[in-house]
């Protein structure tokens, strides 16, 4: 049971904005629908950094608004419709659950640009966007491989996004430390601090050196700090692990939001299916901990530039699954279809898929 606060008040407050036809010199109104509170240091927080970047970039030319804690369903549809009927020119839905409500509203407002993160329903005025998080996962995996010998992963659900991350970290670690192994614990939740902590403790009790997580809370970082081990976090959580927090993968939505808003301002916006990572600055990694030596930083930074330039792909061949089957042949690049439906562990991950 996740309590969802009444966001009715916020949505009603938006209704106070003056309605009326937008004149050419009026600022572009941009609306954001968030699935949780901004302060969560996780997913929504990083989207809001993108929103702030928009304001900084365009100043008076844009006006942004957001509604927090909108999980999906009727709530989401109402908020999106509210934005649309108040002359918002660009509306972002930031959670997978916003997909269907947004698609329904988008069909009724063909002149408004809609953007949905992490979904798959596209329309002439509904673009979709997502990040290649696995590129950053590969890099934090390298850090883990250079600083330890085994990784313990607190994982949520065995979906392709998470499996790509586990595999990318393992590949990154083994590229610099061939005997490196990864252990995975599935807790069947995106958010349960107590259970995340229990899982992290269990992995540490079993002797792993470095932790990683796909869950939202900083509980795993705290566990590593308490037990004097390392962690590569999801989002910059350095304040929870002064010594343990080696680095983190960081989503960076700002550049994408700026680019899309500029297109709307220029009148060149059109629907798109964006799946970009480091090369588009949509993914990066958090500042290194002081304990990470210079040669490690140099190696990881160099790999980051190779990924940026396209000279290296984390899943380039030869890619061998845990059971020995070859998924990508030597010298070849994986196609996005395979990545999007990934359903296997690579060599180096222990245990079998649930």
């Amino acid at each position: 049971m996740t309590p969802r606060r009444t966001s009715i008040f916020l949505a009603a407050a938006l209704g106070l904005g003056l309605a009326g036809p937008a004149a050419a010199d009026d600022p572009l109104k941009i609306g954001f629908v968030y699935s949780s509170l901004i302060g969560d240091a996780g997913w929504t927080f990083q989207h809001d950094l993108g929103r702030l970047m928009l304001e900084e970039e365009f100043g008076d030319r844009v006006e942004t608004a957001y509604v927090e804690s909108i999980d999906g369903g009727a709530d989401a549809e109402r908020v999106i419709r509210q934005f649309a009927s108040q002359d918002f020119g660009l509306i972002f839905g930031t959670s997978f659950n916003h997909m269907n409500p947004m698609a329904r509203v988008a069909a009724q407002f063909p002149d408004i640009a809609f953007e949905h993160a992490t979904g798959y329903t596209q329309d002439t005025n509904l673009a979709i966007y997502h990040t290649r998080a696995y590129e950053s996962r590969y890099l934090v995996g390298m850090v883990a491989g250079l600083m330890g010998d085994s990784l313990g992963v607190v994982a949520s659900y065995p979906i392709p996004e998470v499996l790509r991350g586990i595999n990318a970290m393992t590949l990154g670690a083994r590229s610099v430390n061939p005997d490196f192994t990864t252990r995975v614990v599935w807790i069947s939740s995106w958010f349960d601090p107590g259970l995340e902590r229990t899982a992290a403790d269990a992995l540490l009790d079993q002797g792993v050196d470095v932790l990683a997580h796909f869950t939202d809370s900083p509980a795993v970082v705290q566990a590593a700090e308490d037990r004097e081990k390392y962690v590569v976090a999801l989002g910059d959580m350095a304040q929870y692990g002064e010594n343990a927090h080696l680095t983190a993968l960081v989503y960076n939505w700002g550049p994408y939001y700026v680019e899309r808003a500029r297109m709307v301002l220029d009148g060149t916006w059109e629907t798109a299916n964006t799946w970009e990572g480091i090369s588009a600055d949509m993914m990066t990694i958090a500042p290194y901990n002081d304990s990470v030596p210079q040669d490690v930083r140099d190696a990881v930074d160099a790999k980051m530039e190779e990924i940026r330039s396209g000279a290296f792909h984390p899943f380039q061949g030869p890619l061998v699954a845990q059971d020995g089957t070859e998924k990508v042949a030597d010298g070849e690049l994986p196609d996005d279809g395979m990545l999007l439906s990934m359903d296997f562990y690579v060599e180096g991950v222990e245990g079998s898929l649930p």
Partner: protein
Amino acid sequence: MIDSALMIAILVSAMRTATPLILAALGELVVEKAGCVNLGVEGMMLVGAVTGFAVGLTTGNFALAFMVGALAGAGFSLIYGVLVLVFQVNQYAAGLALTILGGGASAFWGQTWQGRNMRGLQPVELPVLSELPVIGVMFTRLDVVVYMALAATVIVGLILTRTRVGLILRAVGENHDSAHALGFSVVKVRFAAIAFGGAFAGMGGAYLSCVMTPLWIEGMTAGRGWIAVALVVFATWKPARLVLGAWLFGLVSVMQIHGQGLGLAVPSHVLAMLPYLVTILVLVLISRDATRIRLNAPGCLGKPFRPTA
């Protein structure tokens, strides 16, 4: 594959997992013994968690943090008390409302405390016990609240069965009309029981935000309040069984995680369901009148009290 050090680690983890459940369920047990079902445990835990964290972070004094968490939980539970005892609102609806309100209120009030880090309450070393061979190390890795929760269970058990106060409480829960006729104030007794339940739920929440994961995030109880409610039924309203149930629950959830890490083919979903399955079984059993008495369910549980005279 599982050596003694790992066994101890599993037990320690299980005890820690069980402690917030024991606290919250013990409070709910007393409430139900007095004849009320308060489904607001989750909300009260959240209120206790956020206030406990705020006090723990600002003062560094965890005794104070738990006290304030308990007070906040108790104060918050009085909303339920007033609704149910004064306005005769349906108990289940009032409890659900408390859960929803607690989630919202704690998230709203907790915005300031989100994203703050704290060094949590540290384990204590028990004299004598920690020198035992093999299992001794366990008594260096548990915190004082774990022991206090167990002590509270024993004390509540004794009060319920061996004292006049306990007898009055049970009388109110078994048959409020008779208790009323005997001159006891049903409303006052129930108010006290509800506040007690709120205080213990608040401490359960504070355990999460001050010990287990020393941080505040909205919704951080993640359903533990509901597990506590289920545990009371699972324990058939007996404090000792409640502790066993909480330990079993903790052990099962920790074991399935360790099993995964060790690569054992544990049917983890089945194990995770086990406590709920048993709860459903108990519920089915107590719906049959003959066994109901044997299983201890308070006679007036969930029934509104309207004084006749």
